[in-house]
């Protein structure tokens, strides 16, 4: 008579076993190794590291494998692992002027000190399916780097484009600060947020969300008028001060993408006409995200620059910061598939009662 509608332990165990089987797929096809994912799905690995806020290509590749290629699920695995890690120390700020560059372009100057380095980009590829890859042939090796590029002298710092403009006072001053920023993963988000906190939220925010927010500002919802002053991708050293030694020690390097936009600004009541800045910094080669982040950063700065709030979504700090995290978003969105029969029963009862009363009133009126 009474059907056991409520699930149980066995159902969960069976679901997990089936999931593991589905993850492996056809056993006639060789299994993917984590190293293969790390090396050949590197942009996916980068995205998982960026949104997972953990720089570890091996673990990110493992997460992608375990998540069957669902990148948000992979980000979630990394985030859940990350929270359990002890905080051993804090690194010194990375110095992106000392980056070993793979790519460095400026859209605002034809040539500039340090040069334009195109690097490994999709930009000028023709989007034609390469069936040779399907035949699993090895691509030819790329020629060795030419003498002219920054690789030739990696110890020579490459100055930022914004610093050239800054010399003439044409771009706003970005004051240096040694203040320790709030750690978004160790303190609840409270508003209004500092720029450092906003940037933290954006760099780990969902790429699709940040992209769409940035795009909306280009189309007129809180215009940003952005030029890519500079986009650079490469590796930077991470240094940690060792108190016992009294100096900083390099503990490794991370690959990052940095984007600084130069934005037209006609001046406001408080600020003179000058160019203003938007900033993006993301783990790995993730330039779509870094550019989008710099546009959204600039858009959220309307208040400190004395601009008008036009009511655009990308100007709304609370809207952007509360909704950019895909792990929070996907959790809350998907939780509606959990049982809600108690609430639904309460609603059923209410609707039945309201209908009964409406009917009684209608009958009385007739």
């Amino acid at each position: 008579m009474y059907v056991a509608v409520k699930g149980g332990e066995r159902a969960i165990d069976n679901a997990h076993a089936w999931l593991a089987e589905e993850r492996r797929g056809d056993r006639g096809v060789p299994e993917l190794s984590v190293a293969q994912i790390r090396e050949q799905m590197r942009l996916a690995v980068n995205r998982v590291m960026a949104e997972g806020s953990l720089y570890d290509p091996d673990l990110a590749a493992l997460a992608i494998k375990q998540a069957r290629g669902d990148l948000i699920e992979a980000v979630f695995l990394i985030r859940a692992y990350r929270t359990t890690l002890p905080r051993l120390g804090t690194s010194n700020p990375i110095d992106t002027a000392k980056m070993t560059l793979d790519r460095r372009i400026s859209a605002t100057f034809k040539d500039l000190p340090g040069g334009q380095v195109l690097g490994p980009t999709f930009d000028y590829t023709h989007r034609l399916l390469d069936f040779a890859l399907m035949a699993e042939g090895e691509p030819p090796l790329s020629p060795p780097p030419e003498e002219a590029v920054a690789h030739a002298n990696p110890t020579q710092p490459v100055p930022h484009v914004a610093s050239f403009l800054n010399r003439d006072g044409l771009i706003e001053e970005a004051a240096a600060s040694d203040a320790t920023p709030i750690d978004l993963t160790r303190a609840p988000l409270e508003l209004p947020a500092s720029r450092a906190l906003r940037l933290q939220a954006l760099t780990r925010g969902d790429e699709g969300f940040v992209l769409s927010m940035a795009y909306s500002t280009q189309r007129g919802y809180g215009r940003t008028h952005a030029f890519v002053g500079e986009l650079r991708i490469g590796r930077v050293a991470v240094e940690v001060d060792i108190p016992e030694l009294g100096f900083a020690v390099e503990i490794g390097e991370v690959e990052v993408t940095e984007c600084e936009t130069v934005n037209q600004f006609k001046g406001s009541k408080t600020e003179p006409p000058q160019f203003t800045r938007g900033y993006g910094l993301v783990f790995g080669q993730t330039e779509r995200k870094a550019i989008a982040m710099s546009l959204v950063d600039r858009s959220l700065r309307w208040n400190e620059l004395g601009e008008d709030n036009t009511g655009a979504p990308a100007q709304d700090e609370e809207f952007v910061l509360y909704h950019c995290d895909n792990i929070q978003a996907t959790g809350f969105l998907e939780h509606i598939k959990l049982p809600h029969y108690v609430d639904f029963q309460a609603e059923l009862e209410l609707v039945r009662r309201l209908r009964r009363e409406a009917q009684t009133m209608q009958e009385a009126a007739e």
Partner: protein
Amino acid sequence: MSDYNFAYLDEQTKRMIRRAILKGIAVPGYQVPFASREMPMPYGWGTGGVQVTAACLVPEDRLKVIDQGADDTTNAVSIRKFFQRTAGVAVTEATTEATIIQTRHRIPETPLTEGQILVYQVPIPEPLRFLEPRETETRKMHELEEYGLMHVKLYEDIARHGQIATAYAYPVKVEGRYVMDPSPIPRFDNPKLSGNCAIQLFGAGREQRIYALPPFTKVVSLDFDDHPFHASKAPHDCDLCGAKHSYLDEVITDDAGGRMFVCSDTDFCSGRRTAGHIGRLGTDPAHSRPHPSPTNAEGGSLPPRGERMGVGAHRQVGSA
């Protein structure tokens, strides 16, 4: 699981959560921001409740987890398993035997007792959220005790429907001060919030808020003098145990409109059937859904009930 600390969270994190809980208890109904951690289950699955439970658990605890009133719903099973695995604590399905009960959407039918802790999973802690989406605004409204908007909403319900059309997550006022969201419990459960002997803790992980009702706190469901609050449920008795005053699940039994009503609180229902109460469609309890005996993490059975009497004594949060 020696790779992880007792009850998964590290001690510093537990301290941080305990401080938030203590503050919440000191200011009943006030939403305390806390640095919610990413948990190994998704936001929306009870991460707030899990963190609060983890911060309260001690090795001697006996944990009960319910979802929709039932111990055997998938997510309740999953959370119970999580704590068996990470804390190795004993678990139970009996409300009276539990020292901590984590719940989603229900308050057990069996009255709670002193020394017990009821932990609620909360999706949206802000009772004013659907009237004002901005957190910056709603926090100000709480500061100023500016609850006019809520009363207007309830009044508009009455003007349009002749009654307050909120069936669950029905707003309450705590000790005459803070308006609070009781989590999405049916309004049938609202009266149990007030004057409860147990400590009631509310955890919202994604929204990073903890709030609390200390024992014997006065909690009033919002209403008007001429439209007093009333707890409501389906106008039936439980078809299995015949209970007249328990909250019911509606179960569709065929495709011709056939349905039955059963207690949503599975422990309450099986307890009644064991005691010999039989409902309209009930059978001898020995042949219907068996009530599994409580087991601890290793699968052994629990010590006798008498040994849990010192519940309050070991619950010291001295390190916080």
